[in-house]
């Protein structure tokens, strides 16, 4: 083992060494390397430094945990698959995320089993970070310790004798600063070598338990005692053990009086004792710091009773501004670009294939691409808040309030983002580790009024509330709009509370977390987060959105038998009678065609069901098309009432006002409009959201429950409103 190289993280030397290694190795090598470390130990930064844009996000089999992998070029001829495992404090898992790690490390014959482990540790907090390291070392995995954040340690007056630490730990130790890329070259050189298992062990099982451990070890043919001890602790959840295997371990546990919780606690205490002892010769703190740290000083302002909340509100305001105002231009550009593309395709000729391509696939694709600016901006904001350490403070300030409603301090961000768009909001709920809190958050987020409801609200609110100023300053329609947002928020919070009482927790909820120090965000990390989230949205949610859009297009463009042809003929003769302009004629044809299409038939079929809410078959069609995305409402209404697709709001409103019911009275009465408004507040009319919930919960249960619950709520509330106001 060329440990001399290891100790000199000099980039130049590193490169020359890499070159000579390349000459030596004739065949190309491919290694599987796992990246493990405490949360906040700079693991993600290191992963980004090693792999750059060569990253992929997938799933661990059978669990709802993201599996981040990437490829690192170690030397000219040596590439390594790097897997970034979730941050953890120990090998005894407490959350679903952490279970992924032991699942990977227990099964030595698995094709996924790493050849090599890189353990990241925060040098400024070495004692606690070494706990996980010593556990991994006792599993006898070949490994290297990436001693990260050397700069922070230095600022704290902590000096680490790296050579001595390497001696004590029995593995190569690379001092580094992953955020700035310092030490990465040296690390790659070590990673390219073939290392043996660590030469030190850190924990011995007690003599009384040794016979039991040995029996397990030989029974399962394991390579060391510590792994056997883990089998004894975790046997119940090891999927690769048969029922007989489990019964065998269970019996042994009974026989030896194996108290899992007490033994784990004692092991942790013993390990800390051992670590404290070995660090005596390694770490020297030269400056007994009595000064308050800068993080504490910042916290006194940012988590202040008054200033804390005010600053948080200002940041929210900025976030809204970004999502509504700054995203508008790129969204318009994408919209126009997609429309242009559709137009280009249409100009190629006529026929169902062209229509499918332009009105079905390209329009559906537009619905996906449109959201990219909002998603990118939202995640840029969230990444910066997360990277800087501020998000932990928001969680801290809001936890008590949110807990009352079955939510969690960490639910604040998704709920707020939900007012822009539920899709990125649901994705951002990943930061919530607790399963129950996260599911509740995901479930209620779509009740927050998102930006797609704005056009619907604007068109309809005029039928309920007159344009008038009250109390001198308040525009009555503005107040009504705010009321709709409030209605969404209140229903989200109350639904969360209801769900809290219904759901049983899968795992125990811990709030306890490390409070990270404030740091400037690394733009590379922010950039990679944006790329990752946008990719996830486009490729995973995108597929479903496009599929449903195509389906809706088919329903709206085709009808039973030759009904559409007849409808067009009828519309033409009607237009000729009334002497309409070509444009008006086209609009009339479109309206008649829609009426006779499968969508129109569907509208008539469900009309009896929505009649108590005050809706007719025309509104039903709009409800159906809105299922893909609620912003389609205005467009569909325009087609049904033959306004033409490009009409602005006031034209649409005029048309709606002119619409008469069977008694010749105006159809859109305040009661009907209010009922429709309330329906749009509650109804789950967004395929993108359902697709995202499906992706995030890895199953159809939650999206279907969400659909059922919100549709039911919408129906009942609309019914109440219409019957009361009628």
């Amino acid at each position: 083992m060329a440990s001399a190289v290891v100790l000199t993280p000099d980039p130049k030397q590193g490169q020359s060494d890499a070159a000579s290694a390349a000459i030596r190795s004739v065949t190309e090598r491919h290694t599987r390397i796992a990246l493990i470390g405490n949360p906040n130990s700079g693991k993600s930064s290191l992963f980004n430094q090693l792999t750059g844009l060569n990253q992929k996000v997938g799933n661990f089999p059978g669990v709802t945990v993201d599996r981040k992998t990437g490829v690192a070029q170690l030397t000219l001829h040596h590439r390594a698959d790097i897997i970034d495992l979730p941050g953890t404090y120990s090998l005894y898992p407490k959350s679903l995320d952490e279970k992924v790690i032991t699942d990977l490390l227990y099964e030595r014959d698995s094709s996924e089993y790493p050849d090599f482990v890189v353990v990241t540790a925060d040098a400024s907090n070495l004692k606690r970070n070494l706990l996980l390291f010593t556990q991994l070392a006792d599993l006898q995995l070949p490994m290297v310790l990436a001693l990260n954040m050397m700069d922070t340690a230095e600022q704290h007056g902590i000096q680490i004798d790296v050579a001595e630490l390497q001696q004590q730990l029995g593995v190569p130790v690379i001092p580094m600063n992953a955020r700035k890329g310092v030490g990465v070259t040296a690390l790659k050189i070590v990673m390219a070598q073939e290392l043996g298992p660590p030469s030190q062990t850190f924990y011995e099982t007690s003599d009384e338990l040794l016979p039991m451990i040995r029996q397990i070890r030989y029974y399962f043919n394991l390579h060391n005692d510590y792994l056997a001890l883990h089998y004894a602790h975790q046997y119940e959840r090891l999927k690769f053990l048969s029922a007989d295997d489990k019964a065998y371990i269970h019996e042994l546990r009974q026989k030896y009086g194996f108290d899992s919780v007490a033994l784990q606690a004692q092991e942790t205490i013993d390990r800390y004792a051992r670590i404290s002892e070995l660090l005596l010769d390694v770490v020297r703190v030269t400056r007994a710091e009595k000064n308050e740290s800068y993080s504490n000083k910042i916290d006194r302002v940012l988590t202040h009773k008054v200033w804390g909340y005010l600053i948080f509100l200002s940041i929210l305001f900025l976030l809204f501004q970004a999502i509504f105002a700054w995203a508008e231009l790129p969204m318009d550009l994408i919209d126009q670009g997609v429309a242009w593309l559709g137009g280009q395709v249409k100009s190629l000729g006529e026929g169902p294939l062209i229509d499918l391509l332009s009105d079905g696939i390209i329009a559906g694709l537009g619905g996906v691409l449109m959201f990219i600016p909002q998603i990118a901006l939202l995640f840029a904001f969230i990444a910066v808040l997360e990277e800087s350490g501020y998000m932990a403070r928001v969680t801290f300030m809001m936890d008590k309030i949110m807990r009352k409603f079955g939510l969690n301090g960490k639910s604040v961000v998704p709920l707020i983002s939900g007012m822009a768009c539920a899709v990125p909001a649901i994705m951002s709920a990943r930061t919530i580790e607790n399963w129950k809190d996260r599911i509740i958050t995901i479930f209620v987020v779509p009740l927050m009024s998102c930006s797609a409801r704005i056009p619907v609200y604007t068109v309809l609110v005029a039928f309920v509330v007159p344009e008038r100023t009250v109390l001198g300053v308040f525009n009555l329609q503005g107040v009504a709009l705010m009321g709709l947002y409030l209605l969404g928020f209140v229903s989200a919070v109350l639904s969360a509370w209801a769900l809290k009482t219904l759901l049983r927790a899968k795992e125990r909820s811990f709030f306890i977390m490390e409070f990270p120090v404030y740091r400037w965000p690394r733009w590379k990390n922010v950039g990679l987060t944006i790329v990752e989230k946008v990719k996830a949205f486009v490729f995973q949610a995108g597929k479903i959105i496009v599929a449903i859009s195509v389906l809706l297009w088919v329903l709206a463009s085709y009808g039973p038998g030759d009904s559409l042809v007849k409808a067009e003929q009828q519309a033409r003769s009607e237009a000729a009678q009334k002497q309409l302009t070509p444009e008006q004629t086209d609009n009339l044809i479109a309206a008649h065609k829609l009426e006779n299409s499968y969508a129109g038939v569907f509208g008539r079929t469900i009309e009896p069901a929505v009649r108590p809410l005050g809706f007719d078959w025309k509104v039903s069609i709009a409800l159906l098309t809105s299922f893909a995305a609620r912003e389609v409402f205005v467009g569909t209404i325009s087609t049904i009432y033959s306004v033409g697709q490009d009409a602005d709001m006031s034209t649409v409103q005029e048309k709606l006002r002119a619409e008469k019911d069977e008694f010749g009275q105006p159809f859109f009465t305040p009661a009907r409009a209010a009922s429709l408004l309330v329906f749009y507040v509650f109804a789950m009319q967004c395929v993108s959201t359902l697709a995202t919930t499906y992706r995030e919960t890895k199953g159809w249960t939650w999206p279907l429950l969400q659909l059922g619950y919100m549709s039911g709520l919408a129906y009942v509330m609309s019914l109440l409103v219409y019957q009361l106001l009628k």
Partner: protein
Amino acid sequence: MPTLSVASATTSRSVKDLRLGETGTICCLKDPEMALKLLEMGCIPGTQVTLSGRAPLGCPITLHVDGEYTLSLRVSEAATIMLKD
């Protein structure tokens, strides 16, 4: 069997009772399951902890552990960490 500093003890004060800025030494952890998590996060018996902050509504709180790092935890969790007299 290893004896447990995790089992309940007779001491009366817990981390919950610390005043802002006050430092105490951990004696033992009351709730065994919570103890595993706390131990992993460095709350080992004998470690010095300082109450460094409270959220505006009184919960959660922040604890400075061993002069090295800060943890944030709920008051109910802090109540399981007992202090030496």
